[in-house]
């Protein structure tokens, strides 16, 4: 029998340790594996370093709850809903360090990690103040063939990554429907020590074999599969659902007050299962985000 990698959110959270570097899928209001973000908060994780290509509301929650001490990436923003206030406040108060790279600078580090190389090279960030922030991970070198100056970026190997996908089989073959494929999906599993994937649905291996073109991560690179329908809420997961506009708006407002913000996170993280969480959100809000095409 092949290994069965399906487990509960709590079992998957046990694969993340205090102090780990955790790469989290997401682009602002898009595609954040929120079920696992809530589970890390429930588990009381501390001192995490978080990497994201565009950090969004999930990073704000981890910041408010004191679960992270460092962000390693290019930007944290909820796009049209503005800055993540808890994250901003924590950085300004020096409780969280913002280890800032350009987007392709971060991807250069991860791509080197994915290929088990000591460093990658890039022309990005030259002339900016970003390289000087990182004497330990960025240094200027000469192209050995032409002498041109480029930046060497030390490889990055997060301990664990969190992704969300459309479906998986129990062995851990991960499928995405057509649509935007973020760099997270392509690089994180190869660069990270462990890979946890929440999915909208768990299907049989036979169903996966009908559409092998949709499999984007092979089972051998996956450590945990967690069933989490609507698992990116309140962020979007194309093409299934869009971001919850009402949720983000009210979060942007109530997160002005740290006490209310933490109470709201605690309320939502109090749900002991994905079903219970969706009950808290309400059927109306969930179906609203699914019927987006007619409004687009």
């Amino acid at each position, binding site marked *: 029998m092949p290994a069965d990698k399906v487990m509960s959110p709590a079992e998957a959270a046990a694969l993340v340790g205090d102090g780990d570097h955790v790469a989290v899928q997401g682009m602002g209001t898009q595609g954040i594996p929120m079920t696992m973000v809530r589970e890390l908060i429930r588990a009381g994780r501390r001192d995490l370093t978080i990497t994201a290509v565009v950090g969004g509301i999930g990073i704000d929650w981890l910041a408010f709850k004191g679960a992270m001490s460092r962000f390693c990436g290019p930007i944290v923003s909820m796009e049209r809903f503005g800055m993540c206030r808890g994250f901003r406040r924590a950085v300004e108060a020096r409780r969280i360090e913002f280890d800032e790279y350009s*987007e392709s600078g971060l991807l250069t580090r991860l791509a080197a990690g994915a290929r088990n190389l000591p460093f990658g090279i890039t022309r990005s*960030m030259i002339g900016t*103040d970003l390289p000087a922030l990182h004497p330990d991970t960025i240094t200027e070198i000469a192209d050995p063939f032409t002498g041109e100056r480029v930046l060497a970026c030390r490889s990055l190997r997060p301990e664990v990554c969190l992704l969300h996908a459309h479906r998986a089989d129990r062995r851990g073959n991960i499928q995405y429907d057509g*649509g935007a494929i973020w760099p997270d999906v392509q690089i994180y599993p190869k660069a990270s020590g462990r890979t946890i994937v929440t999915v909208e649905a768990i299907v049989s291996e036979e169903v996966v074999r009908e559409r092998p073109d949709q499999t984007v991560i092979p089972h051998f690179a996956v450590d945990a599969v967690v069933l989490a329908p609507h698992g990116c809420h309140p962020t979007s997961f194309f093409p299934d659902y869009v971001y919850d506009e009402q949720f983000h708006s009210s979060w942007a407002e109530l997160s002005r007050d740290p006490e209310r913000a933490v109470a709201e996170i605690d309320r939502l993280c109090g749900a002991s299962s994905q079903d219970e969480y969706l009950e808290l959100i309400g059927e109306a809000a969930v179906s609203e985000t699914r019927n987006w095409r007619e409004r687009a």
Partner: protein
Amino acid sequence: MSALDAGGGRQSQTATDYTIDELMVSTLARRFENGDQVVNGAASFIPACAFALARLTHAPELVWVAGGVGLDARPRRIPASTLEAPLWHRSSMYMAAEDFWPYALNGRWLTKFCVRGAQIDQYGNANNSVIGPEYDAPVVRLPGSAGLGDMGSIGKRLLYWTTTHDPRTLVPKVDFVSCAGWLDGGDARRRAGLGGGPELVVTNLCVADFHPDSKRMRLISVHPGVTVSDVLESTGFELLVEGEIARTEPPTAEEVRLIREQIDPGGARLREFGPGS
């Protein structure tokens, strides 16, 4: 073609009823041509409207990677987010980010890029990282450099826009260089090995470019109703003024109609104005 021909007569008529957002969209749109490829970033409503307008008027072959994903998207209208799926409507390809970056980094494609920064300085460096002298103890933490840290360093022609032309935004020197402009001016950018660079600045008050030698920001035109001294007083550094300053060409009546009725009837572009913008 016939629709464009039919509109041809009206296209050249200057609008009398227009607002500043429409003037900015039209000014930016005229900088994009058939054969250009462009991409828009987060909360980039003015550029998104400008790309759509250019395609409906003089540059139908302008290639637009909407939200960095949707190749040649045909959104029904500019939606409330310039990154999310509604903007990628009827694309001819969903570009994976791992595809997008090699195309952008390659040098052959996507040669123009629109930049907005919380701070822009007299040499066209932009800051979207921190306000204050110390990076580690910021007075205000901004969202982060994101793609600006790439686009400023890889040979792109940079077109800036800001809806807040004031001394807080247009500063002598940015607190942090998130996007490399002309650096310290003169040939500093070339000495750093960088091609391309800042070309144009479109604000809510004026249009500026950069002096070919000193690379200092230089006033080209003031928008109708704005005086040169208004602009100078609203700028945190000494803006170069050479000779007679023109009045910015207003949008045509047809451009205004297209923006209001076809491209952005929901007024998403107004999200860039007012509190919090």
